[in-house]
């Protein structure tokens, strides 16, 4: 396969297809993933090519999806579950947190649970309630899970396959409003490790760390800042559990300032954890406190207000200004 331009949604689809070709134990399961190809068409064509036994239209019950996926994994399968929207994951929360995350530990390492849970997440699509949330911190907080998120088609393609190959359960958060963003994908390229962060744009004045849907926002902010003579270094975290702090710390030691950006509310979010850990490791390098840009401590508001709720280019630049003012 040659390098090409594709979208995140298509890259996930190709990653799933490739994984299913490589390993007959890989299954795709979820609501509407079969005949319809998923509400975002991410699983389009998979049931036609791999059959109903491997691409399973499940009953409309999220706990049931994860619970049966655990059973399939115990029988030797590698299920990839789709939770249709972020806000619908909570009925499955108990199976994910109490069973999926803990069962390998409970068994003293005798059982492995190679289950992938794909979650289209985040706002910005003008949706009704429960379709725009960013619940990643709940899962990053849970030992036993791995949590990753992609921001571009190449990562979407490779991270999907890496997550499926992992013998640990992996939550893959997919930035739904970026599903149709285009980017380069070279299937023959050597991918980064699943849990490595990446410097998405080099800079010298402030490090801005982001993940998933906010990576594009932050890169746009960096472009705007450049016009004002400010050089932002953008770190795409990619993995939320474990965190690749080494890459981030190396960047902060160069720039001496850090702003963390995510859509999720800042209170007890990933940014809080990153601020604490980076401060601990970079205390004598920092010229300013680590600042966070994120959602407010509110339920996700009605969609006509989401542009005010979500971090955008201006909110990122405002935080950059504050970091530089110290």
């Amino acid at each position: 396969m040659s390098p090409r331009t594709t979208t995140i949604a298509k890259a996930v689809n190709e990653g799933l297809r490739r994984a299913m070709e490589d390993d007959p134990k890989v299954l795709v399961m979820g609501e509407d993933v079969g005949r319809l190809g998923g509400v975002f068409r991410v699983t389009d064509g998979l049931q036609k090519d791999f059959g109903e036994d491997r691409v399973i239209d499940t009953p409309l019950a999220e706990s049931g999806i994860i619970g049966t996926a655990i059973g399939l994994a115990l029988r030797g399968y590698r299920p990839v579950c789709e939770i249709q929207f972020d806000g619908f994951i909570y009925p499955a929360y108990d199976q994910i947190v109490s069973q999926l995350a803990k069962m390998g530990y409970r068994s003293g390492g005798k059982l492995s649970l190679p289950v992938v849970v794909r979650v289209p997440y985040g706002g910005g699509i003008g949706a009704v309630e429960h379709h725009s949330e960013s619940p990643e911190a709940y899962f990053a907080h849970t030992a036993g899970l791995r949590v990753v998120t992609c921001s571009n088609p190449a990562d979407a393609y490779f991270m999907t396959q890496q997550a499926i190959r992992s013998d640990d359960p992996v939550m893959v958060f997919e930035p739904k409003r970026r599903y149709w963003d285009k980017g380069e994908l070279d299937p023959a390229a050597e991918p980064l490790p699943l849990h490595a962060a990446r410097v998405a744009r080099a800079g010298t004045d402030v490090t801005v760390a982001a993940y998933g849907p906010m990576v594009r926002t932050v890169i746009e902010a960096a472009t705007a800042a450049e016009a004002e003579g400010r050089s932002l270094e953008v770190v795409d975290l990619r993995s939320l559990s474990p965190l690749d702090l080494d890459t981030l710390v190396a960047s902060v030691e160069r720039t001496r300032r850090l702003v963390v950006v995510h859509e999720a509310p800042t209170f007890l979010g990933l940014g809080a954890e990153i601020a604490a850990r980076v401060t601990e490791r970079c205390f004598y390098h920092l010229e300013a406190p680590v600042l966070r840009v994120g959602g407010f401590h509110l339920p996700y508001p009605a969609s006509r207000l989401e542009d005010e709720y979500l971090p955008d280019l201006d909110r990122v630049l405002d935080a950059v200004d504050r970091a530089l003012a110290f």
Partner: protein
Amino acid sequence: MTVPAVGGPGGRPPQPPLVQLLTPEGERVEHPDYSLDVTPDELRAFYRDLVLVRRVDAEATALQRQGELGLWASLLGQEAAQVGSGRALAPQDYVFPTYREHGVAWCRDVDPVTLLGLYRGVNLGGWDPAEHNFHLYTIVIGSQTLHATGYAMGVQRDGAVGTGDPARDTAVIAYFGDGATSQGDVNEAFVFASVNNAPVVFFCQNNQWAISEPNERQTRVPLYQRAAGFGFPGLRVDGNDVLAVHAVTKAALDRARRGEGPTFVEAFTYRMGAHTTSDDPTRYRIEAEVEEWKLKDPIARVKALLARTGQAGEEFFAEVEAEADRLAGHVRGACLAMPDPEPVSMFDHAYRDPHPLVEEERAWFAEYHAGFEPAGLEQAGAVAAGEARR
């Protein structure tokens, strides 16, 4: 809210008949749908299982009372439901238990000592599920019914159902209690199993009590009747009748192995003891009810049949008692000898692949912990030196 009576005495729903092959008095009776030929050897083996399982359970309760276990969930009264169903399983079948299935564990050759690790607090479940086709105990009520259903869906995808090969065709059995039938997960498991025609038997031990809540707080219909709404058969069996439980479970497992889908078996039994050793049932149920169920004891009726029909005599019963005492001694001795885990071992197995945060915390903890040792060693060394000088 007061729930009006729906026909039964004392506000209880009318109770449907049970499948029964052995009456509480030890009379062998026939049932039109479930016949069972039991050889004297088989009947004696059932008796032995029932007695040994009860004896281990009593020993574990005693160990908890003596502070050797943090908790124990007694199976007292439910021996027939567990042994009857457990002995119906083929080697390739797979079991998903709750935390009370000590009798089923016995049938799957799990050393009773291994069960104690969880309750002593030295591990979270010490046996290898794949070695016994017996999953770890599940404590969250009802979760395992979905795991069983998913496992059964895997069996279907492996083509290990409906082949007619008795060594290949595989059934899965999920154990749960009357309280669990109120859980969403159990109802979702029924839906997934039904629409997939999965080879799973839902084995509900209705022991009448979900801690302090009686059946009336969980259901307005006999539990087995719920199966009809999900599209598969359900039936109620005398859960204190090891023969009937065996016949009914075997039929349900065979049906699953043939590819005919799930069955709901409601084993009507009684929790003779407390919910766990932390519970005090005198706060919520009357002794007369317990006395009534004592007359339906699962072991007494097998003993009565064996004795009355001359299939066993005093010598056999004494032998089994002696074996039970030896087994209890083994369980006690091994429990007391169980070492506490090494502190740093808590960092093992949270993940299969390396995880930098866990490794960082492990390294910190090991160093922190080691920081306490020199003082201890110095003290020990000083004592040793003092002894050497004397």
